[in-house]
């Protein structure tokens, strides 16, 4: 019995041979990402068809609540001038949550691939930097690294670079730990049931030991934390930090 924890599977490779980028690999991450996007977009379309001004349906109430929540989240944390940021943060949150939770139906989360989080973190980092340059000018932005004294410059650069890295790794680590622990639990339970039922004599024990009967139950409980809680929490933290960082960048 082996426990295999690996990266995303590659379905097929399109040889492009572009330097640095290499061959285009259509991996599980990408395919599930597209599924996630389709799910979110489908949900949006389903929620917002047939909108009415009064006597609204429950479906419409949910749509309105989501929009209001997104508005309140961004404007409440960053202020009125970041109204343009709402769809971005909403997209980030929705993609993150659905990606994290899609592991519940047996697909591999796109967020269990560091490339995904790194991509998001880089986008957020560029936004933060752009906001900083916008609010204090390019000179002011560069000068900001030498505060409070010039000696601090390397540390300031480090802390600046640490922002996207910590953003990406925090999210990735949490999701990956869920994947790893789930795999370990399934592996351990399968092993335990095979050994336990293998004690039965004859063919019966031989057949039953192939069925990981103990896998029913316990993983559902651990998944409440590792998939549901951790998934939603990490998406929330990622978005919260994004909004906070950008709002802070504007204040300087």
């Amino acid at each position: 019995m082996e426990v295999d924890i690996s990266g995303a599977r590659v379905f097929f490779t399109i040889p492009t041979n572009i330097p640095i980028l290499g061959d285009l690999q259509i991996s599980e991450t990408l395919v599930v990402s597209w599924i996630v996007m389709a799910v979110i977009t489908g949900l949006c379309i389903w929620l917002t068809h047939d909108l009415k001004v009064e006597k609204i349906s429950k479906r419409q109430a949910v749509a309105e609540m989501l929009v209001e929540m997104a508005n309140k989240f961004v404007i409440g944390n960053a202020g009125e001038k970041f109204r343009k940021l709402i769809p971005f943060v909403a997209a980030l949150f929705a993609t993150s949550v659905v990606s994290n939770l899609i592991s519940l139906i047996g697909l591999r989360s796109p967020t269990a691939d560091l490339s995904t989080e790194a991509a998001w973190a880089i986008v957020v980092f560029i936004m933060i930097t752009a906001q900083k340059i916008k609010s204090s000018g390019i000179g002011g932005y560069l000068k900001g690294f030498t505060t409070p004294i010039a000696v601090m410059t390397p540390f300031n650069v480090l802390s600046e670079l640490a922002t996207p890295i910590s953003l990406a790794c925090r999210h990735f680590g949490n999701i990956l730990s869920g994947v790893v622990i789930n795999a370990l639990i399934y592996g351990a339970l399968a092993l335990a049931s095979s050994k336990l039922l293998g004690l039965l004599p004859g063919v019966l024990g031989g057949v039953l030991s192939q069925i990981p009967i103990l896998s029913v139950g316990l993983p559902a409980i651990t998944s409440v934390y590792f998939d549901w809680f951790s998934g939603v929490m990490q998406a929330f933290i990622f978005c919260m930090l994004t909004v906070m960082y950008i709002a802070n960048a504007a204040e300087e």
Partner: protein
Amino acid sequence: MDVQELVGLVPWTFVAQICNLFIQMYLIKRFLFKPVNEMLEKRRALADAQIREAEQAKADADAIKTEYEQNMKEAKEKANEILTTAQKTAALQSEEMLKEAASQAAALKSKAESDIAQEKRKAVNEIKDEIGGMAVEIAGKVIEREISEEDHTKLIDEFIANVGEAS
């Protein structure tokens, strides 16, 4: 089937996920925020319109109320005016009537007095004539003779004068 590293950066996936994020942002904007915000805007416009309508109705009602109050005030003033005028007129009229009555009474009185005086004169004259006749008869009988017309008249006048003094 190949697998990628468990912890690693795959450049193509990295680029694709950036694109995916922005595509997702557009899709959410297009399919969730745009219709919902449009609907919310419509609802806000409707509510605003209703509030404006209510304000208009209130203003109208206020205008009607002030107009009504104005009218009431005017009517009251008019009524008061009419009342005072009527009172004045009545007073004037009654005064006039009293005066008239008084003058009429005075006229009646004076007329009656003049009538009485005339009647008296008339009666006196009649009595004068009668007494004159009687006196002539009596005198004729007493004297039993024809008195001349001159004496006759003289006697009568004398007598009447005496009677007039006596009456």
